[in-house]
């Protein structure tokens, strides 16, 4: 026992010198997994029920409308693409509220976040990836029925350029609302780690608050205080989206449509909500990840 110095024994492991995937690939894999998980894919059979039930419920009317348009031979769709999402916003809100905890609560609650961070992946990238997964999932959720309508409309021989313009407006709005909803529900879910409370919290933000705003707008419109209603519209993601849809002439009726400078304010606040939500999620992941 002369040599007391430490030694690393050669157990025959071979060193790997080949190319390694970078942060971008890891992030992409995480993004795709997150997107699949939002729809229950790659998870248990039970977790597929809710997302697909909601997706079915929100697509079914589109299929019915297409059927009616084709059979009756209407020259126009009975509602616009943006107007369709306005009708199904409750389903979209429920989807966001129910699936955000899947992506945001579990890693933090069970602290498996440290396993992600043990990879060469900074906490903010994990947070961004999660947010991107949920935003994309919401976009898929909202765009799918709209595409069904669009395809049906074209098959029924409606004017292609009119329909495409309408569709592009709707998709721009859906992208905006998806990133807002993902920011809001993602942040709520990363703070309230108990699934039930995260869901109720998200429902408050996505259903109750917009309900309040709509009520205020209705009253303001009736009382002739349009400006109050327009200002109240800044307070919820759905009223912002619907206000913009109305201003862009995308076929959504609101009690108090924004005009002029208000349209810019609506857009700015919408982008701000999405941005602040995202920043808050990142801050939350950085904090929990460093504990």
């Amino acid at each position, binding site marked *: 026992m002369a040599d007391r110095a430490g030694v690393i024994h050669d157990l025959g492991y071979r060193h790997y010198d080949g190319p390694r995937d970078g942060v971008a690939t890891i992030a992409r894999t995480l993004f795709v997994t997150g997107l699949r998980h939002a729809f229950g894919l790659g998870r248990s059979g039970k977790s597929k029920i809710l997302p697909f039930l909601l997706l079915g419920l929100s697509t079914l009317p589109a299929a019915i409308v297409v059927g009616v348009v084709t059979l009756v031979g209407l020259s126009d769709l009975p509602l616009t693409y943006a107007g369709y999402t306005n009708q199904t916003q409750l389903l979209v809100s429920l989807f966001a509220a129910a699936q955000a905890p899947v992506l945001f609560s579990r890693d933090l609650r069970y602290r498996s976040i440290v396993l992600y961070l043990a990879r060469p992946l900074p906490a903010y990238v994990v947070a961004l990836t999660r947010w991107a997964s949920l935003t994309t999932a919401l976009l898929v959720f909202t765009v799918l029925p709209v595409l069904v309508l669009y395809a049906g409309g074209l098959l029924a021989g409606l004017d292609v350029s009119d329909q495409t313009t309408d569709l592009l407006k709707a998709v721009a709005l859906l992208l905006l609302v998806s990133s807002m909803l993902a920011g809001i529900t993602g942040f709520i879910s990363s703070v309230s780690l108990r699934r039930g*409370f995260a869901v109720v919290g998200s*429902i408050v933000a996505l259903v*109750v608050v917009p*309900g*309040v705003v709509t*009520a205020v707008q*209705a009253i303001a419109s009736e009382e002739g205080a349009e400006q109050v209603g327009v200002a109240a519209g800044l307070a919820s993601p759905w009223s912002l989206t619907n206000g913009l849809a109305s201003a862009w002439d995308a076929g959504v009726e609101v009690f108090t449509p924004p005009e002029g400078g208000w349209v810019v304010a609506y857009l700015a606040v919408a982008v701000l909500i999405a941005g602040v939500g995202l920043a808050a999620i990142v801050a939350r992941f950085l904090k929990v990840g460093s504990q």
Partner: protein
Amino acid sequence: MNSTIIKLAAQALLGRRRFWLLLAFPVLLIALTVTVAALTDAEAAWPLLPGLGYPVVLPLVAVLAASSVLGPEVDDGSIVYLLSKPVSRHSVALSKWVVAWAATMLAGALPLYVSALVAGGGDRALAAGLAAVVAGTTYSALFLAVSAVTRHAVIVSLLFVLIWEGLLGNLLSGVAWLSVAQWGLRIGHEISTELPDPTNLPWAIAASLVVTVGGVWFAGDRLRSFTLRGED
């Protein structure tokens, strides 16, 4: 009923963040009604009740209260501390329901009545208050039963309220026969005809009673078969 379980459940409900969430609903509702009534007139504030307070705030408060008294304990298994006692499981369920019911009344039905008073008062307010008491009672029992069955109680309950009663209830009038909110309205209709008349009165009373008693009994029955499993 068991006073210790009631005390523990009340402590769990009051002592934490969820209490603030629960409190936010009545504050929001009353503040909104008062603001609108003050800026315009009482009559203009009334649509807030059938539009927001009754169909959204009341059931949400019931969902939150019912799932709070049972959900987390079933979820993390710590309910075994209550169940490994010589106390009948039906009595456990009943005690839990009493707490959820009281919370629903205080944070849901009472503020609704207060808002109705602000928005004009009269028979109409009393009718709305009665409807909220009936529906709140039924909701809390129904959601307690849901909490005893599934870990996704909040989602399932919300689907029932928002999709079944809300979305489909607005499209299909037949849904009223299987809608807790409509039963409550029908009973309130007896006091003021300003409330709608969606079903017939005996049905509304019987259905509310059956769901309330059945819900609490069912929750107790589920607890009787409560099974402790490993982590999953």
